[in-house]
């Protein structure tokens, strides 16, 4: 059974079709890139996987189940926006994650926090955007989840932080889990991907192993992307 499975997945926003009959299977033990321009349907697919949207047609399954309480306890989602209550301190948020997620590894989170020199007693309100982003990343990566959805994890991030994020993703790798990285910044991320999925106007146009693409097409993923998505 695939870890993530889309069967005929379709989603409309009013009259606009965001996803069109998507069929996709992703096995565990992979870091997969969900690559496409803005508005191609990446975030829609991720929201559907998290139960934040309901499909208009078809289905999406996480470890064999439709999105619900069961899948939410094994899926870790890092959205591309701030989602934490501003007035809480880092400590308080760690406690909250501990309370709700059985797979949250508090010690790991605290280790990452101290390696980044962030004070756990500080409230989010007082932090810079970059630091808040790091907190959100720490929360997500400290969960021992079966599926990780990282939506634009390195957009708007300085190069040093970017390296830290990519290294964290690699070090977190598990044979039993899947990491989906959704981004349009391909060059920075492609070396850590197993497979890549190109999505265009709500349809999957490519799903292949990254090294295989490099071997067969003699291009980087970034190069192929620019070709496929030429305006």
């Amino acid at each position, binding site marked *: 059974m695939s870890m993530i499975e889309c069967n005929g997945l379709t989603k409309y926003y009013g009259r606009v079709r965001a996803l069109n009959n998507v069929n996709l299977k992703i096995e565990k033990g992979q*870091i997969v890139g969900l690559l496409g321009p803005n508005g191609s349907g990446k975030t829609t697919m991720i929201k559907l996987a998290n139960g934040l949207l309901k499909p208009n047609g078809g289905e999406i399954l996480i470890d064999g189940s439709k999105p619900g309480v069961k899948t939410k306890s094994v899926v870790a989602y890092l959205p591309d926006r701030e989602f934490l209550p501003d007035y809480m301190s880092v400590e308080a948020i760690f406690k909250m994650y501990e309370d709700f997620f059985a797979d949250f590894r508090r010690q790991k989170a605290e280790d990452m926090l101290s390696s980044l020199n962030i004070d756990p007693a500080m409230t989010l309100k007082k932090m810079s955007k970059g630091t808040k982003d790091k907190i959100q990343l720490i929360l997500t990566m400290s969960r021992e989840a079966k599926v990780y959805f990282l939506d634009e994890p390195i957009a708007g991030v300085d190069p040093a932080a970017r390296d830290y994020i990519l*290294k964290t993703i690699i070090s977190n*790798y598990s044979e039993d889990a899947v990491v989906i990285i959704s981004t349009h910044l391909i060059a920075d991320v492609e*070396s850590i991907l*197993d497979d890549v999925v190109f999505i265009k106007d709500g349809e999957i146009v490519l799903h292949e192993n990254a*090294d295989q693409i*490099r*071997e067969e097409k*003699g291009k980087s993923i970034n190069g192929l992307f620019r070709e496929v998505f030429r305006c």
Partner: protein
Amino acid sequence: MEWNFKEGLPIYSQIIEEMCRQIASGAYKPGDKLPSVRDMAADAGVNPNTMQRALAELERRGLVFTERTSGRFITKEEGNLKEVKKTLGMRYVAELFENLRKIGLSDDEIIKAVNEWKEGVK
């Protein structure tokens, strides 16, 4: 270690290349213990499966071996080490010939140029 990957070539084969170079040049000494796959992957900024694939190939070539409880090590087999130096060396020679042929030198002229260069360096 500084890893620089070229575009358009599979990463796993570039890792193999680089490891061979490191072994041949002695940066990795015979019997050296390698870090875990995950650590090597993180250091190189690559996918762990890719790193694993490269290491498996190196193991197949006899340059690296795994001791089940202790980890991965660079081989101490003289034969294998010599082999990798030879293979790498021959490839660099081939590259030299290829490049110089491209600018119009004949094979004899190439050997002459090499000797000239060797004299000049003294």
